[in-house]
């Protein structure tokens, strides 16, 4: 009985969380502009969605910025994590505090500070500034994904590589980087997700003509309800859901394979945590 009540409570919370999304999805097939009325099934909004050049071009921008910023942030962040891991004392603490700054700062503050910088430095707001801003807020998350992996490493691993004849550069590429690869991948995916999900920072650092999906949605939603957004939501939600299922099934399979497979699910939750750090 108690168990039943407990379960019902969770289902109620789930209903609260999923209901808006479900309604959005159902109404994306509704052949009527008005919300309350069901005008029959249609794919009209999907057709219109793909014909909407604003949405399509912002989708392209989102993907481009997401992929590029994630890759650059991962490279800088991974190198930085290795450097931080090997530094000590005040230097380390100072760098870590600066790293936490964009994570802890309200997004809007990061956003306006970058906007001021770009305008101040006379950089035209647009693709470039968007990219710079996204790399900036992504790097700390890459660092925070890679650092724990470095801490788990046997501290003699680097020395072992040198001992076996590698130069320091070889040791880095042939041993350290491969050993922390899971952390790097987590960081990359996290950076990509954060980038495509971002609204606030993009909103302030973009210029006329360049718009990400989030910005387009915002300007459409500000004008009220638009069934094309429903169609877009449905597609995005399905995409995310499929992605998560694939990732989880893959991890479950790896867990069965390897003996220390537990890392998989923990890593998953950790990256969720990290995502929450941001909204």
């Amino acid at each position, binding site marked *: 009985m108690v168990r039943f009540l407990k379960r019902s409570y969770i289902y109620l919370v789930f209903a609260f969380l999923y209901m808006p999304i479900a309604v959005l999805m159902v109404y994306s097939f509704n052949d009527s502009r008005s919300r309350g009325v069901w005008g029959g099934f249609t794919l009209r909004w999907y057709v219109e969605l793909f014909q909407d050049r604003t949405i399509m071009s912002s989708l392209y921008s989102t993907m481009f910025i997401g992929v590029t910023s994630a890759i650059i942030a991962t490279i800088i962040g991974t190198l930085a994590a290795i450097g931080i891991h090997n530094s000590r004392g005040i230097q380390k603490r100072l760098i870590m505090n600066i790293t936490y700054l964009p994570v802890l700062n*309200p997004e809007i503050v990061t956003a306006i500070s970058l906007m001021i910088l770009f305008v101040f430095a006379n950089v035209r707001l647009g693709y470039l500034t968007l990219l710079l801003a996204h790399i900036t807020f992504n790097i700390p998350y890459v660092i925070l994904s890679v650092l724990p992996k470095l801490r788990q490493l046997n501290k003699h691993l680097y020395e072992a590589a040198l001992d076996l004849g590698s130069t320091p550069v070889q040791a880095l590429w042939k041993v350290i980087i491969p050993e922390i690869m899971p952390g790097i991948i987590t960081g990359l995916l996290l950076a990509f997700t954060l980038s495509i999900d971002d609204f606030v920072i993009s909103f302030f650092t973009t210029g006329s003509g360049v718009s990400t999906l989030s910005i387009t949605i915002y300007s459409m939603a500000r004008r009220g309800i638009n069934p094309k957004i429903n169609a877009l*939501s449905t597609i995005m939600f399905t995409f995310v859901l499929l992605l998560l299922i694939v990732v989880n099934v893959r991890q479950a399979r790896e867990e069965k394979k390897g003996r220390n497979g537990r890392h998989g699910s923990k890593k998953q939750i950790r990256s969720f945590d990290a995502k929450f750090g941001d*909204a």
Partner: protein
Amino acid sequence: MKRSSLFPYVIWMTLFIVVPMFLVLYYAFTVPTDTGATWSLENFHRFFEPIYLRVLGRSLRLAVISTVICFVIGYPAAMVMAGNAFSRKNVILLLFVVPMWMNFLLRTYAWLTLLERNGVINVLLTSLRLPRLNILYTESAVVLGMVYNFLPFMVLPIYSVLSKIDKGVIEAAGDLGANSFRVFTKVVFPLSLPGVVSGVTMVFMPALTTFVISRLLGGGQFTLIGNLIEQQFLVVGDWGFGSAISVVMIVLILLSMAIMSFFEGEEKSVALW
């Protein structure tokens, strides 16, 4: 060799984090003159005019209300999820997290459909011959949007702390004669405090600084501190005043984090992780 890998990052962070922060401070503490700018506290003085203090008050009030609601709903949910009511905990956790992967704006937008005058909820209510609910573009809608968006931030840290509590501790408390209510108040809740603290911080901070939720669900009639900043930068163009408000906001957040870490005791000073 390994230390030098820090260089790109240090340069990047100086350029894009440290310098911008100083620029914000510079704009906050100066006012433009004919020849350039001069140091002044005028921007801060302006913020303490009643009209802006009211905005600050409203922001704080809505953020506190949302945080309390999130806590009241979230703590029991975290407890149930950490307990043994479900056999497949990972799946439940995943289900809880999935909506969060949906774009933040779409999630907020979804409530427009539900709350509209002719929206789903009202159609339902009318068909049941109940009075309509007209909360869209009111404070309630803004709070609802905050709770909806930030609830998982409350639940997950609490869940992760609760699920790590050694079952032996709870059994020991029971063994020492505590009933389940006292086990909760004397053992479980105190042990879960670090999670509560990060949960509260993680809800309160974005709730205080949001401008999207208030703009979409408040219809622009409810200026919050975030909206005020947005307007200064994107509409009015008064960077000095906008920067000053940002500085006030950062101070507020540092203050609340300090209070939080005081409650948390000696645990961790930066407890978002």
